[in-house]
């Protein structure tokens, strides 16, 4: 060791939050101690599949609500588009979830237990109930293609009522499917996810609604897309409101939502959401503008989900986000006990 060099532990002892420079900070640079600047937490081992599932799960939830609305109010084209999109999205979801496992061949071990303390276990059971319902509702759309006689003729007669029941079941489960993923992320030690538990469900609910609306705008003629437009407005409102709170309400832990790749993704998501809603409302006479708006809303949902996912990963990687809020909590508690 070179005697002229400062001791290693010493060099790393103090880190300044603003050391990267160039970024505007809402909170004063926080001084904190760490072990050689290494993260305290393990960053999530989940990869892009989970971020993508947040999107596809949301699309499935939004589409099932759209389909049920179409079913109940007598809009067959809306119903069909919603049911088919829901089946496609939930199939993709299942594939993504299994692929992300360290041992994919053991995916069925999820069905050994039902644990209320594990959002993943609860989500597994929501998916287990929702998947077949969404599948059946979509398959029922094919009833008119079947022959009128024989065993398949029986199926042709039985499928539509079955599909109606399945569609309503899927829609009843859809809000749970669209929001449990927020609890899934929040129920971790990942600082920017955990502390966002009050707002994440609204971001995800809004994003799911907006993406379901996006499916409707893409698949249905402009004249019949009225409900999808209104759903887009409501969903975008929820999503933008929630995301604004994520980016501003969490103090230091809002920083990962504003900076780096996560910040860029969330900004892109917001721009696409605004563009999508504007197009949906202003372009209601044009099939092309409506379809483009739908695509923008779906893209917005992708960007938002990946942004939220990335922000959490970033907050787990930097010990600052672990140490500083916990120090503040300790100081607050000490100040309270002094009083």
């Amino acid at each position: 060791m070179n005697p002229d060099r400062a001791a290693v532990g010493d060099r790393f002892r103090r880190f300044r939050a603003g050391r990267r420079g160039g970024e505007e900070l809402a909170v004063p640079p926080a001084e904190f101690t760490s072990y050689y600047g290494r993260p305290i937490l393990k960053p999530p081992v989940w990869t892009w599949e989970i971020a993508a599932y947040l999107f596809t799960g949301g699309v499935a939830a939004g589409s099932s609500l759209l389909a049920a609305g179409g079913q109940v109010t007598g809009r067959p084209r809306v119903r069909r588009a919603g049911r088919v999109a829901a089946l496609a999205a939930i199939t993709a979801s299942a594939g993504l979830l299994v692929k992300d496992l360290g041992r994919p061949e053991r995916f069925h071990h999820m069905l050994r237990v039902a644990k209320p303390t594990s959002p993943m276990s609860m989500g597994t059971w929501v998916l287990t109930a929702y998947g077949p319902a969404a599948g059946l509702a979509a398959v029922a759309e094919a009833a008119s293609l079947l022959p009128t006689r024989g065993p398949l003729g029986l199926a042709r007669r039985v499928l539509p009522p079955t599909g109606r029941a399945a569609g309503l079941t899927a829609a009843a489960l859809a809000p749970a499917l669209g929001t449990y993923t927020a609890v899934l992320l929040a129920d971790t030690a990942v600082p920017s996810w955990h502390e966002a538990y009050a707002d994440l469900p609204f971001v995800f609910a809004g994003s799911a609604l907006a993406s379901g609306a996006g499916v409707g705008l893409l698949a249905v003629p402009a004249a019949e897309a009225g409900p999808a437009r209104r759903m887009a407005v409501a969903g975008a409102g929820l999503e933008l409101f929630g995301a604004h709170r994520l980016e501003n309400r969490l103090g230091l832990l809002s920083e990962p939502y504003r900076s780096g790749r996560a910040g860029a993704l969330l900004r892109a998501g917001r721009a696409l959401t605004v563009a999508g809603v504007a197009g949906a409302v202003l372009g209601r006479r044009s099939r092309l503008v409506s379809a483009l708006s739908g695509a923008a809303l779906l893209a917005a949902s992708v960007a938002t989900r990946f942004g939220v996912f990335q922000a959490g990963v970033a907050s787990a990687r930097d010990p600052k986000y672990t140490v500083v809020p916990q120090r503040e909590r300790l100081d607050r508690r000490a100040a309270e006990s002094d009083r």
Partner: protein
Amino acid sequence: MVDSRGRPAVPAPSTAGAADPATAAGWVDAPPRMGFFTDTSVCIGCKACEVACKEWNGVPTSGLDLLGMSYDNTGALTANSWRHVAFVEQHRPAGDGSSPVAEHPTGTSCAAGTTTATGTEPGLLPGRPDAARAPEFLGMPAAGPPGRTGSAEGRGDFRWLMMSDVCKHCTRAGCLDVCPTGALFRTEFGTVVVQEDICNGCGYCVSACPYGVIDRRVGDGRAWKCTLCYDRIGAGLTPACAQACPTESIQYGPLDELRERAAARVDTLRARGESQARLYGHDPNDGVGGDGAFFLLLDEPEVYGLPPDPQVTTTDLPAMWRRAGLAALAMTAAAVGAFLGGRR
């Protein structure tokens, strides 16, 4: 509910009770809760614990990786390192407010301002004014025990903190709470263990651990961590790391006993002037309900890479479900409104 060996048939959430986690998990007539007390003030950084753990548990190597962090080339607790010895080199300049060296068994260098010898007892050393200014090579270990040479030669104003980190076996274990397969379970000794034949590598426990302990093994795909040598302690043996520790820095035993011993040790160190000595993870009222493996530290927890105020994430779970329920209602209302809100 319970089979002949007293095993619970139904896994219970670990948040149920803080007093005796094994009983709360459904064990009948559970043995006393066992744990580790790691006294870092006597750790010499030999890493015998790391080696013994790997040998006994058949933990694979993590490859040769020189990290440039003092003598620490393990880096952190991982799927392939269930004990991790941290090395912290601290520069404590004179006049930093710490106590005089005479009362400092670890020999930080507050006597750097004095120029005459003040005694020959261990730790009672003459100071060197220059040592307060310039960092210095710590030197190779001498033949005799440090502090008994009667000379300041080779001693600077540094101290080494060494600490053998391990899974904390929390009373309220986040990993156990969120595990969706039941692979993680609470043993009769109150420890937390992964069943390797059940784990499907979902990775939820990795994100839920407030200490960053449990980890998914690359290539294997499953989550791994310290089992507190479940196989050994079931047979009445001491866990491999504690057995191998040459200075009794790692102590294994019933948690109640360890807590008493630790409280006495901290009092002793404080009486000797080590004002920074403190226990970490011993308090049953902390954010994780107290740790089954707790520590005596000589500085703030984050210096060793430990979180200063860990909280089990599932404390807030009821509030999370309520917010999600509210959002789900908003979602339903929005969908209903979208179809009722207009003719087209």
